[in-house]
């Protein structure tokens, strides 16, 4: 079984069939195409996107519904074609620390995942309907 040594989760074993494939990578990480979704009960609803090829690269995300249950997904034609989703995809938003605003979520560019095919794309919206720095609460883990 393939495995990677990660900083956050130690040794992670995985099935190749569970790997998410980003054909275009992610903005600023275009060469990073393979990721695992890692969830732990203690950090729910966070979904970690752990790079398979670069163990030190890991994104903290949450399902967009955890922030905005009424979120309206809108992908460009190009992204929709790249994703070629069969059914309703899973939408995750990437969290980042943003200076004085604390942690924020990028609702302007959700990670959209077709679970059946394991294809994924970070679909950057062309409209200005949502913020790329939507504030979320922060608390210290003990």
């Amino acid at each position, binding site marked *: 079984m393939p495995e990677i040594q990660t900083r956050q989760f130690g040794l992670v074993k995985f099935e190749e069939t569970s790997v998410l494939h980003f054909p275009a990578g992610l*903005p600023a990480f275009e060469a990073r195409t393979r990721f695992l979704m890692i969830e732990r009960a203690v950090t729910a609803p966070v979904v970690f996107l752990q790079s398979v090829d670069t163990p030190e690269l*890991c994104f903290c995300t*949450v399902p967009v519904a955890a922030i905005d249950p009424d979120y309206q997904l809108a992908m460009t034609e190009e992204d929709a074609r790249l994703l070629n989703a069969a059914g309703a995809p899973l939408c995750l938003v990437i969290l980042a620390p*943003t200076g004085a605003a604390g942690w924020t979520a990028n609702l302007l*560019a959700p990670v959209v995942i077709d679970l059946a095919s394991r294809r994924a794309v*970070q679909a950057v*919206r062309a409209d200005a309907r949502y913020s790329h720095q939507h504030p979320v609460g*922060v*608390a210290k883990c003990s």
Partner: protein
Amino acid sequence: MLVIRRRAGESLLIGDEIEIEILECGHSQVKLGIRAPKQVVILRKEVHIAGEQNRRAAEALSRLDSWMPKF
């Protein structure tokens, strides 16, 4: 900010090596053609911004100690 009006078919030159041509001008959208050297990165602004956010996110998690977002 330099503000210029152009019609479809007209062009702008930026520096010695970049040309922007207005290919089509619709009522809600403009189609632009851009000629630039290969090494010049051309991105939709919001894609550039997503890249910045991703870099911040990746860098933070690589330094993460005990801080975690909570909902």
